[in-house]
């Protein structure tokens, strides 16, 4: 079946990826450049999206709770827990699957169709490890940071927008943000973001590595990679929530 074929090929690629790199120095250099390209360049996007989403979640919660019997701290608390539990891990993962994932598929895919991967192979370099390992390590490493950045700026977004439009006072909001804080939620989401980081890098790398054809196929593979990554993120979200909550 199709699924088993892909799964088998994916895991056999991973064993190639996780074999010992030829050159330590070259690997470390590649790792830092990938952290820069895939991670640091994503921070801006994460900040912007998180500020907006934090603001919007805060407004939504506030407008849905215009009932004097509901305590106002629920607004800050609602924003905080949405960010910590789902938005900054899962939704951010879905968004970054689009940005980082399509980048990885198209880069590796075009190297495949222009025979650059064959070229590495002929030199005696393990192309899977050389190209993919630094990407996976970089993305898995950077994801928890992006998670923390996202939660932080999401909370800032709520603080700017909530009091800004007069839905809540800054004091009420901050009070809510600190109310009944459960550190376990953060740990849980950290685990999720590590898993999502692995998916967002390894799945698109797989799709790129096995492209056949030309530019058209690389484009098609990018789309398939992003869709597949998104579905797997949601499935893993379900599994991890069931296992860890």
């Amino acid at each position: 079946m199709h699924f088993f074929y892909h799964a088998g090929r994916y895991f056999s690629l991973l064993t190639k990826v996780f074999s010992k790199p030829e050159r330590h120095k070259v690997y470390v250099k590649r790792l830092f450049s990938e952290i820069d390209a895939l991670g640091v360049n994503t921070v801006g996007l994460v900040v912007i999206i998180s500020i907006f989403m934090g603001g919007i979640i805060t407004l939504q919660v506030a407008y849905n709770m215009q009932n004097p019997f509901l305590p106002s701290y629920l607004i800050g608390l609602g924003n905080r827990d949405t960010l910590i539990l789902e938005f900054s891990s899962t939704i951010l993962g879905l968004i970054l699957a689009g940005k980082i994932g399509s980048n990885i598929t198209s880069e590796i895919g075009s190297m495949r169709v222009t025979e650059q991967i064959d070229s590495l192979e002929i030199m005696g370099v393990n192309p899977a490890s050389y190209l993919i390992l630094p990407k996976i390590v970089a993305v898995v490493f950077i994801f928890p940071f992006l998670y923390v950045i996202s939660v932080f700026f999401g909370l800032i977004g709520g603080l700017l927008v909530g009091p800004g439009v007069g839905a809540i006072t800054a004091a009420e909001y901050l009070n809510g943000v600190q109310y009944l804080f459960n550190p376990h939620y953060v740990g849980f989401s950290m685990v999720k973001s590590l898993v999502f980081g692995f998916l967002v890098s390894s799945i698109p790398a797989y799709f790129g590595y096995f492209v056949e054809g030309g530019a058209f196929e690389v484009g098609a593979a990018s789309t398939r990679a992003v869709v597949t990554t998104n579905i797997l993120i949601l499935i893993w979200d379900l599994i991890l929530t069931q296992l860890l909550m």
Partner: protein
Amino acid sequence: MIRVENIIKSFDSKMVLKGITTEFQKGQTNLIIGRSGSGKTVLLKSIVGLHEVDQGEIYYDDRNFTRMKMKERKRLRQEMGMVFQGGALFDSLTVAENVRFPMDMFTNQTAKEKEERVAYCLDRVNIKPEAFRLSPAEISGGMQKRVAIARAIVLNPKYLFCDEPNSGLDPETSLVIDSLIHDLTVDLNMTTIINTHDMNSVMEIGDKILFISEGEMGWIGSKSEILHAKNKKLEEFVFANRQYKEMRDARIENGS
């Protein structure tokens, strides 16, 4: 020397190589010729192990490549250089970095030694120092091919493989590339295998020629024999260009 014995390769149900047996000599430019789709690229990629053959053996100076483990193959590959049809330069690296790359991966030379070697190899293929810092996208197709050749020879390989080194180049540049590959082959005493369907190359540098047709061995010989070969398919291939028919007829008239 490279020897292939009865290699067979299929994709799904389609047999592309139907039992090829031949030898490629050291210090010579060995050409694989044939029409588009005859299996030249598949043969070359099978010889270097980018395709696994279904059957048959490949020997590199009596070392059985087909039976080697991945680790041994990787070591042997450091003795190989390959120039791909499109050049296959790494587009994230500059011209000089491309040529330096195999040294970075496999040698412990100092930065200065590497730099000198890069300059030497690029000079050998007539790339001017001004171009060293450019990216592959910024140089012409002919230059890309030449940089690819420089990269392929930087570790002094014993075996050089070129898949259609002339495709997409004008006749004059093709000639330059051909004689470059031929000279390097002789100077470095490499076993060189070149895929081509360019009759000009055949007549220039065809020390040994293997003609394949639909995955089967059609004819083996040298450039001095090819015009007089008695092989229907080969004649169709060679004389598709009228110039060579005239050349043959002229030779016959002169009694040579």
